């Protein structure tokens, strides 16, 4: 090896001192570089050949490692450390850090401040965002193995309004046997297909309408999750979650115990090398107490109303991915759909604050549903097109005696979306999206988005 170093050094010295070479053209430089590289390679090849011969000689003369030792003892070769020495110093145990930067330009024909899904209780911050240029949510993620038993992950979201929120902060018990994976802390629930995907991983700028109507965009759990993967060749996973249940459709209740329960089952597998799929059924049970909002009544007044009672949501989801021979690099297609059905029953108070002098509490029962279907096609490397259709069914709402004041919803909100995105590398994506939404009777919102998503730092996971 030292001969190689000397040779390279001498060559480098010549390069530095000789004025003729200093004026060398790019081509000549490239040629010299090539020669150095060849020199290096030929030395490496020779060293490797020597190693090979040495190894061959060793195997011929000495009995092998496994024979010398009792079979239970870890053989020296297997136990030996990786080739590269680990990094040392104070930063050696730093967690994997990554950041997501996003921004959007929006052109909305309707006022986003009046965004609402007709016939559905407001579920929180689901509006498409400000018109014009705006910064998206920036995300900062830290993750690492805590020790030999736990893995920790923290994802902080920085909003364009300069507020900070903890999107996910959970621990994972990695030493659990029998296919069990316990998680605890704050995390996106594993219900449905899209719920545990971060917004920057979505195929469209915004969430499907069912997620907006039934889960307030995305369902976050503060609590425990236990998943179990069945020991079968086909994928079969059962999951259960117990949480605080503060998020929509539940509310804060200031009580001990469990506020929400979730159970789901996912199945999946491959059909030949080109197709893979996953399907699931999920169930969410939670309660709301004084879920208050305002609603236009039959007389046209903006009445304060409130709901207290139980809320159950069932979700059926599937995703099918196709890539020729499983090679998603060139072209691939993804079809996904989810159906949600919600039942709520309890008490409903009309004119909660008495502003209209008509305060009335009555029984309430509602069964509402909706679905979306979307397809995304990568027609050439780095380029994808997608289309999505959203539909909501206001279903049956039984207002009891409040029917005197409130109308039964009959309008079906729907939305058509198309998008085109360019993903020059795994770490960047630019997207345009156009959609036409009819979310309330007689109102059509034409929405146009341009979005960028940049990922810095640790390599992200390729989630299915």
């Amino acid at each position, binding site marked *: 090896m030292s001969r190689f170093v000397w040779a390279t050094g001498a060559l480098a010295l010549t390069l530095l001192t000789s004025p003729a070479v200093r004026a060398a053209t790019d081509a000549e430089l*490239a*040629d010299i570089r*090539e020669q150095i590289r*060849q020199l290096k*390679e030929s030395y490496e*090849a020779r060293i*490797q050949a020597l190693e*090979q011969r040495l*190894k061959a000689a060793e195997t011929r003369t000495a009995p*092998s*490692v*496994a*024979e010398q030792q009792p*079979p239970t003892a870890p*053989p020296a*070769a*297997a136990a*030996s450390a*990786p*080739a*590269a020495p680990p990094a040392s110093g104070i930063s050696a145990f730093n967690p994997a850090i990554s950041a997501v930067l996003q921004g959007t330009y929006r052109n909305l024909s309707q006022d986003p401040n009046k965004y609402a899904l007709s016939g559905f209780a407001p579920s929180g911050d689901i509006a498409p965002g400000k018109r014009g240029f705006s910064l998206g949510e920036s995300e900062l993620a830290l993750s690492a193995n805590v020790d*030999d038993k736990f893995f920790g992950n923290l994802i902080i979201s920085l909003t364009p309004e300069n507020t900070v929120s903890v999107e996910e902060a959970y621990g994972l018990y990695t030493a*659990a*046997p*029998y*296919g*069990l*994976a316990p998680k605890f802390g704050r995390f996106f629930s594993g219900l449905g297909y899209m719920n545990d995907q971060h917004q920057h991983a979505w195929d469209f700028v915004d969430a499907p309408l069912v997620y907006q109507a039934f889960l307030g965009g995305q369902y976050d759990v503060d609590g425990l999750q*236990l*998943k*179990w*993967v*069945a*020991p079968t060749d*086909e*994928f079969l*996973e*059962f999951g259960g979650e117990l949480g605080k249940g503060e998020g929509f459709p539940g509310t804060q209740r200031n009580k001990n115990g469990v506020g929400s329960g979730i*159970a789901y089952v996912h199945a*999946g*597998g491959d059909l030949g*090398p080109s197709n*893979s*799929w*996953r399907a699931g059924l999920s169930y969410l049970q939670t309660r709301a107490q004084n879920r208050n909002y305002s609603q236009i009544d039959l007389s046209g007044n903006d009445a304060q109303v409130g709901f207290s009672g139980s809320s159950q949501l069932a979700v059926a989801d599937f995703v099918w991915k196709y890539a020729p*021979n*499983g*090679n*998603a*690099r*060139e072209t691939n297609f993804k079809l996904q759909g989810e159906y949600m059905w919600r039942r709520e029953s309890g008490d409903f108070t009309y004119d909660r604050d008495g502003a209209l002098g008509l305060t009335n509490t009555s029984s309430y029962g509602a069964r509402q549903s909706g679905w979306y279907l979307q397809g995304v096609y990568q027609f050439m*490397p*780095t380029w994808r097109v997608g289309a999505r259709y959203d539909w909501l069914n206001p279903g049956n709402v039984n207002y009891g005696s409040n029917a005197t004041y409130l109308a039964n919803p009959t309008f079906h909100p729907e939305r058509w979306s198309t998008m085109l995105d360019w993903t020059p*590398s*795994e770490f960047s994506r630019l997207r345009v999206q156009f959609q036409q939404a009819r979310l309330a009777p007689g109102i059509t919102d034409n929405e146009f988005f341009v979005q960028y998503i940049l990922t810095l730092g640790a*390599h992200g*996971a*390729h*989630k*299915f």
Partner: protein
Amino acid sequence: MKILCSLLFAAMLANGVSSARAALNVFATVPEWGALAEELGGDKVKIYVATNALQDPHHVEAKPSLIARARNADLIIATGAELEIGWLPLVLQQAGNPKVQPGKPGFFEAAAFVTLLDEPVRLDRAEGDVHPAGDPHIQTDPRNFARVATPLAARFAEIDPENAAYYQERYKAFADRWAASIAKWGTEAAPLRGVPVLVQHKAFTYLIAWLGLKEIAALEPKPGIEPTTAHLSEVLAILQRQPAKMVLRAAYQSDRASQWIAERTKINAVTLPFTVGGDAAAKDLYGLFDDTVDRLLKGAQ
């Protein structure tokens, strides 16, 4: 809660059943380690290969089928050096199988036993999809299989001590036949020494080092970045000064860029199997290198 308890019970029951299994369940991330495991493990191992030769190993997702198979694996054989970084950590996290977590005997990384080449001088994503530890495509040099086979056979024996003698016997047979084959390929490939080549993706570093080929340029402007017309024109300019004999691409890669160059320069576009299953002749490890050398010799003519 009742559901959870019964799930737990079912899990324990299922585990009891699965431990009575005879063969060692091996999960190989890429076909070459599946093939090596077969050479060393014979009928004592049941091999599942997570990807195929026509799949870009950098673009694999944590598919449900992979989670299910990792859940039941006794040994995971990965390349390492960040080749599987996009999907294997996620699969391991979701599979709930403590036996095959990194650091445990059930997790084997081949790259740890090979001297990696092409360690990047500048670790920056502006340089493309670089692998910090060095080039992970170690399977293009047969000598690397000899390096990996020794610790892998030892690992088999460690996990499945009952069959240690069997693995050792197979290892010896493999090591002898493999050394002879390397010598044979070396002789056959002697005319390739110094032959200038282009590569589509920088995936043949070890092959080039082994056979003494001369890499003139890569068609991808940066590793993992799609070839652009501008960059291909630069490659054409380089070829004016330094002609190449052929352009190499792996079976899983699109032939567009190679064909583009081949048409304009009349050099041979050579598709290499890259791993076991990359073409009809590359049925096993021997076939892989028989065919690779064969195709290179034809391409160099």
